[in-house]
């Protein structure tokens, strides 16, 4: 299947002290990818580069086979982007913003917009600048998701939201994805968003790409063992980290084969939670 978003060898030097990339990424239609990384890892810069708001030094980005940094700008209708920081909306009310934004997207879903406004209790007659951060974020989402663009890019969509609203949003996004030919790329630090929504995880660390993982596969890759006896200092195959008699492995098959061969028994084996795995990946060190 042709990827909806295709990024190849993307690199960008930001100021003197931050280098993003090289990044390679393909997003298939019908998938949700969580963009994960430590603070300052370049998540927002990557999303802005996809939107042609930041120009890359090297590499290519294609949306539906159109170069984002080329002459043809028709790809813009295929993307709905919710930025983390909203600039330029302050003077307008929600109603005015809708009048401005909706006509730009041929598949604008008015019913979904009204539904979101009602669910999130967004006052459309109030100036954007006078709304709380949480309500601003809700309005921003209500003006982004109904664009019904094939690619939805969300940058920290729930960072200021209350818990019930987060749940509502997750349900809305799941429902929105049901048409099948859409993709979401979501930058988030919220583990619940990542757990409930994502099919794939794209992990960045200080601008470098750590990997693009299928979520279920990633969780099945890691296992935690509690051993009956103390261990020698020798490193066990697959071992990522150890603490007293507990070890974590990113290759359970190799680890178990080694332990069995050495006659080392374990009293318990469990899977790791996704947040533990992400922590291991991001810290890039033994827990």
């Amino acid at each position, binding site marked *: 299947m042709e990827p909806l978003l295709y990024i190849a060898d993307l690199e960008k030097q930001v100021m003197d002290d931050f280098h993003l990339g090289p990044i390679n990424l393909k997003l298939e239609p019908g998938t949700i990818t969580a963009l994960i990384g430590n603070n300052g890892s370049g998540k927002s810069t990557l999303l*802005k580069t996809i939107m042609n708001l930041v120009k890359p030094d090297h590499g290519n980005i294609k949306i539906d086979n159109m170069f984002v940094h080329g002459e043809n700008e028709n790809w813009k209708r295929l993307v709905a982007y919710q930025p983390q920081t909203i600039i330029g909306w302050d*003077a307008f009310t929600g109603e005015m913003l809708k009048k401005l934004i909706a006509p730009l997207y041929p598949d604008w879903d008015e019913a979904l917009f009204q539904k979101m406004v009602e669910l999130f209790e967004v006052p459309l007659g109030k100036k954007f600048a006078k709304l709380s951060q949480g309500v601003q974020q809700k309005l921003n989402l209500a003006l982004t998701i109904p664009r019904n663009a094939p690619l939805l890019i969300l940058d920290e969509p729930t960072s200021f939201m209350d818990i019930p609203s987060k749940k509502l949003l997750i349900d809305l996004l799941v429902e929105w994805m049901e048409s099948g030919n859409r993709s979401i790329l979501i930058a988030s630090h919220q583990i619940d968003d990542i757990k409930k929504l994502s099919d794939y995880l794209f992990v960045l660390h200080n601008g470098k790409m750590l990997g693009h993982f299928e979520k279920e596969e990633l969780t099945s890759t890691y296992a935690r063992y509690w051993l009956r006896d103390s261990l020698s200092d020798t490193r066990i195959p697959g071992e990522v980290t150890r603490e007293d008699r507990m070890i974590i492995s990113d290759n359970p098959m190799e680890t178990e084969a080694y332990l069995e061969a050495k006659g080392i028994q374990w009293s318990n084996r469990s899977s790791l939670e996704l947040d533990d795995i992400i922590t291991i990946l991001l810290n890039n060190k033994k827990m």
Partner: protein
Amino acid sequence: MNNWRYAFEITKLELQKSIYNILLAYLVTGLFMAVFITQLPSYLEEGTAFIDFLFLTVFGLSPLIPKPKSFETQHINYRFIASPMVVMQQHLALNHDTIIKSRLIIHSIYTFPVQLIGLIAIYFATPLFSILSVGSFISFVAMWLSLSFLSGYLVPRLSLGVRGFWVSNSGLSIILIILCVLLFFFIIMVHSLSGHGIVYWSIMIAKELPILVTGVSIILIMISYILWNSKMKKVLNTISYS
């Protein structure tokens, strides 16, 4: 043509929210024009540098007209200025040409109507009426509007974004001081070398060479549109909003 229509559609709300500032811009320009009307007879006889300065300010320094805070070109990031409206438009499904045209529309509405009406008022309310024929007056108008286009398009250009030291507060202050000094120096030089001011000479040139002046002015307007347009496209293709 379609891009002009889109550009107009997306500027409607901004215009609606800018109405008081547009009226203020018209009022200030109108006041300046009123000064010209009262001072022009004595200016034509004695020639005061102050009138030249005012005239050049109205037609050459329209970038100084204040916009509402939410739309004015301002610091978005460290040493990066842009209009928040442009940043917003860049997030939406709008092509670069439409964004540029929307900035041109906004700038033109702030300046063009009041400048044109002001010049017509000066013509009919001062001795200019007896000095310039209608044809010569048209060339006079074309000359000053071409200056307005040439320098005024700096406003939409800046609104798209500028990065670097020169857009820091210190950089902008230095530029403003240098501009004012150069402007004063230029006005004083013309007065001391020729005995008359810039506005006086523009009237005389329009009177003597109306067709040439009109032609050159129209060419200047076209060149300034093409150059600024191409410059703005280049900016949108290269600048990073980060």
